[in-house]
């Protein structure tokens, strides 16, 4: 492999420039196309766009709040998110609404109890073109999060809006990566995942998908062991027949617990602490039903309990109490335990390794496929050269191959040790040379090269196995190529 003199992002930028001049030469560069190309270029410099997708009530907004650590996406017991909402980093809070063919207006930023109100006012959901919330948050500086309404909704138009965003019939998906949430595997999920997969396969959708088994606290009837049950369920999904050829790696995460951990108030903690200190039988008796929890006569004020119930839900309260009894003394300790228990850290880590370190490549991929769709719409002999260059870059860029293979890794028929090594070398844990080879970060270049050389021989050896199936062969080849890149010092 030749070491690349330019990064993929640079190449993408150059291709966009070429496309512009080629279109200009053929006098096809209308103001509209020019704007599209400019947006395409700008996308390379903006934060990565991560869309949260899933069926109705799968907990997308709650997870978004948990990731940001603030309640900026409205949530409710019944279907709540009705329009695709963009959450971007910004110096100060702002809400901007584009509707009715490009009319823009700012909405007032109103919060009650820390929850942000998104009131569209007189504008009905079907007239909204874009709803954008700007919020000061370190996570939003890194990623732009897109909250989508649930699919399989009983209001057809709501589902249709999400599908138009995720898998548009024309053009390409605006997101660079997708976090897919589901509560349990259902045919509607399989259908949507398949659609996303097809779009990625035909170069119209994002490559990066992270799966989340959401509302993990509620699995197994809301017992305090429900997170473990959710993790077991996520392990089961890896061998689910229905997901053949689709994304199979799902992280069990409870958005609610994570959010509560991050927004825990002293008053909430003291109420929980008092409840945890009750005798076992009294506590069990009030935890029987939401009605009893609020109405039973206790020293703890009923108002506090009611507030706790709205915020935590019965399951959340049970888990929080068991954490306190398990040794979480004090609000900060409980907050940390809740977050740890929720699985949010795993999600953060996965986002970092999957999206964070490949940020530029994912964006380049998005920019390239957008560019391709622009060029295909304005086909001319002038642009043929750029189109084939874009195609070549999309097909031949090793990091894209790595991403594709990482998504299918859990389904490979190889021993776990091989799988883990493969994931590591393909950059599943991080893309630095040392992480890929499993070496300490301060390893000298000579050592790294030697280890890479060993790794190449190892994977070549694996490749000589006569009965390998095609995906495994591809993965081994890709592993060799990744190691070669390390040897060449390009990674």
């Amino acid at each position, binding site marked *: 492999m030749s070491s690349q003199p330019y990064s993929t992002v640079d190449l993408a930028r150059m291709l966009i420039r070429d496309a512009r001049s080629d279109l200009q030469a053929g006098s096809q560069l209308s103001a509209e196309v020019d704007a599209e190309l400019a947006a395409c270029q700008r996308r390379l410099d903006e934060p990565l766009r991560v869309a949260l997708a899933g*069926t*109705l*009530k799968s907990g997308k907004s709650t997870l978004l709040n948990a990731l940001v650590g603030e309640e900026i996406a409205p949530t*409710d*017991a*019944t*279907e709540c998110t009705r329009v695709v909402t963009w959450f971007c980093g910004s110096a100060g809070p702002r809400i901007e609404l584009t509707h009715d063919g490009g009319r823009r207006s700012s909405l007032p930023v109103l919060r009650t109890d820390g929850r942000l109100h998104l009131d569209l006012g007189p504008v009905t959901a079907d007239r909204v073109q874009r709803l954008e919330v700007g919020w000061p948050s370190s996570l939003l500086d890194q990623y732009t999060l897109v909250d989508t309404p649930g699919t*399989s*909704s*009983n209001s*057809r138009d709501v*589902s249709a809006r999400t599908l138009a965003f995720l898998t548009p019939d024309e053009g390409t998906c605006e997101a660079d990566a997708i976090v897919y949430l589901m*509560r*349990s*595997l*259902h*045919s*509607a999920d*399989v*259908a949507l995942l*398949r659609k996303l*997969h*097809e779009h990625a*396969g*035909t170069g119209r959708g994002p490559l990066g998908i992270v799966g989340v088994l959401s*509302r993990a606290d*509620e699995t197994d*009837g*809301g017992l305090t062991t429900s997170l473990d049950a959710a993790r077991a369920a996520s392990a089961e999904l890896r061998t689910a027949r*229905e997901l*053949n*050829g*689709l994304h199979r790696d799902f992280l069990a995460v409870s958005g609610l617990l994570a959010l509560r951990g991050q927004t825990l108030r002293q008053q909430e903690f003291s109420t929980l602490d008092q409840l945890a200190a009750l005798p076992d039988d009294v506590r069990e008796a009030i935890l*029987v*039903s*939401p*009605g*009893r929890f609020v109405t039973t006569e206790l020293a703890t004020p009923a108002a506090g309990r009611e507030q706790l*119930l*709205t915020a935590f*839900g*019965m*399951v959340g309260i049970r888990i929080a109490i068991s954490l306190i009894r398990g040794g979480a003394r004090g609000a900060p300790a409980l907050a940390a335990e809740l977050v740890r228990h929720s699985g949010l850290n795993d999600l953060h880590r996965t986002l970092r390794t999957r999206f964070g370190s490949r940020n530029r490549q994912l964006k380049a991929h998005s920019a390239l496929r957008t560019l391709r769709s622009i060029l295909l719409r304005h086909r001319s002999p002038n642009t043929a050269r750029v189109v*084939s260059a874009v*195609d*070549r870059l999309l*097909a*031949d860029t090793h990091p894209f191959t790595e991403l594709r293979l990482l998504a299918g890794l859990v389904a490979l028929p190889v021993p776990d040790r091989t799988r883990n090594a493969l994931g590591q070398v393909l950059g599943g844990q991080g893309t630095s040379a040392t992480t890929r080879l499993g070496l300490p970060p301060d390893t000298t270049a000579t050592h790294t090269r030697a280890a890479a050389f060993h790794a190449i021989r190892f994977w070549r050896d694996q490749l000589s196995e006569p009965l390998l199936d*095609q995906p495994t062969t591809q993965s081994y080849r890709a592993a060799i190529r990744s190691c070669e890149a390390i040897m060449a010092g390009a990674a």
Partner: protein
Amino acid sequence: MSVMTDPAARNGTDTGSTTAITELLDRLRLLTDAANRPDLGTHLAQARIRVTDPRLRIVVTGQAGQGMSSLVEAITGAPVIATGKTAPVVASYSDSDFVRLVPAPTAGAEPEAGAGPVPRVEVGAPNDLLAEGVVLIDTPGASGLDTGRAGAVLSLLPAAGAVLFVSDASQEYTEPEIAFLRQIRQLCPTVIGVITKIDLYPRWAYIQRANRTHLTNAGLDIPLLPLSATMGEIARRNSDAELAVESGVPQLVDLVRHRVVGDADIVLRNAVVNDVRFVSDHLAMALNAELDALNDPSCGAELVARLRDAWEAADRLRQRTANWQVVLGDGATELTVEVEHDLRHRLRGVVREAEADIMTSDPAKRWEEFGSWLDGRIAESVQDNFVLAHTRCRALAEKVATRFVAEGRSAVPELYLDHTGSILDPVQSLEPLDSRKTGIVQRAISSVRGSYGGVLMVGLMTGLAGLALVNPYSIGAGVLLGANTFWEDRKSQTSRRQAEAKAAVARLMDDVIFQVGKESKYRLREAQRTLRDHFTTVATEMLRSADDAWRAAQEANQIHTEHRAGRIAEVHNALSDLRQLRVRAAALVPARTMEVT
């Protein structure tokens, strides 16, 4: 019969109990035996079985993981192990708790209606509701993933008395759930929506309201009951009456008891009343004829002639050329054609969709996904076709019954006016009852159902899945070949594979139409035979009665004058016995509900 009925428990309407009914039937049986009418005796024996085994199937269904098994546990108190993931759980009454796994019936044995070719778990518990004859069937979660599973659930429904549709309070009804509810409603009129896990979700009332809105928008009128199995369980353990009410379990049990069991009970009583009327009318016919002849020997010849006409009319009813036979024959032919046409029509739609899909891109790349998508669409079509066959089959049975009654009435008006209604009864009143009971429609339908169930559960995809299309070029090869030639070549490759894929789909559809068509034709013919046999039996009974009456009148004419008074008294007694029985039978049903028949 493993299910023993507690007589007191059925005493819902205070108009009589099971023992009273059986006693009534037994007395009538004695009279039929005395009149030497074993055919009517069989009729009564069947009625007796129906009374002593008032089993009522209630199917519990919903999407996986919504707490169906816990619901069954809460209602019955039976220890339902969560094996319900793959095998249906059947809970019925027994004196002591038991759980056993019943293996799938072997190919030779006649599978019990509704059991299907899968193993099932049988659970018994000494529970009040179960003692009333309720049998709860907890189906494996119809997650919609396994389309065969949803089909298996649907195939249970025509024989079910009611359906409990379970969805938990974590979210409102989704689009697939509403679609499933629509299908359920078509097959079983009594559907109760249960919202479970209200102990976990404080805002369940909002969910209930949202669900109500969705149901109203979908035009479905279904009662919604919030419920918590966990709270119910705790309430039972601690004997906490207040918590029990809060849990919603007693409300559901009450609803099932009044709405489902109560209705079934009234239907059952009406059926008994009609059976009694039917049998006593037949018995009375001979007696009345004899009495007429005895009282007025002068018009004896005229009476004999009239009865002969009646006999001939009844005989005509039994013939192959009878009008109802024609209606049945024509109807069955039309039905077969219509069902097959419907299947073809639906599948043609699927083929069109599939072809359009194939043309969008290279089919080889996503052959497997395409296969399972097609599988789902086919299963859906076959299911809809099943619903259609079911409703049409029922309509045919009713049509034939109407024709039969009309014909019987015109043939022998004065003798048969009284019980024309009762001929229809097996059609109307037994419909919601167990399929193994004598209801003609039920029998017809259960035979259809068996086959469709089978088709629905067996995967049809073998044809398509086995066919491997040539693998597409790897993307890497494209670069080696040079982009242009690659695209060119790929284009022709793609169109070739698209043609292959279309041919494969067409072949598969032929297979499906052949398989399903063969099964459904066979079963519809079975249904036709069942209907024909049933009505022929009824006609034979009528003929027999007419025959008896005719002979009795003839004999009465020849009886000696001095024996005449004694015989008149005897006949009077027998008639008054019959009348008494009928009055007692009528008292079984409250006057209001009599109108139903």
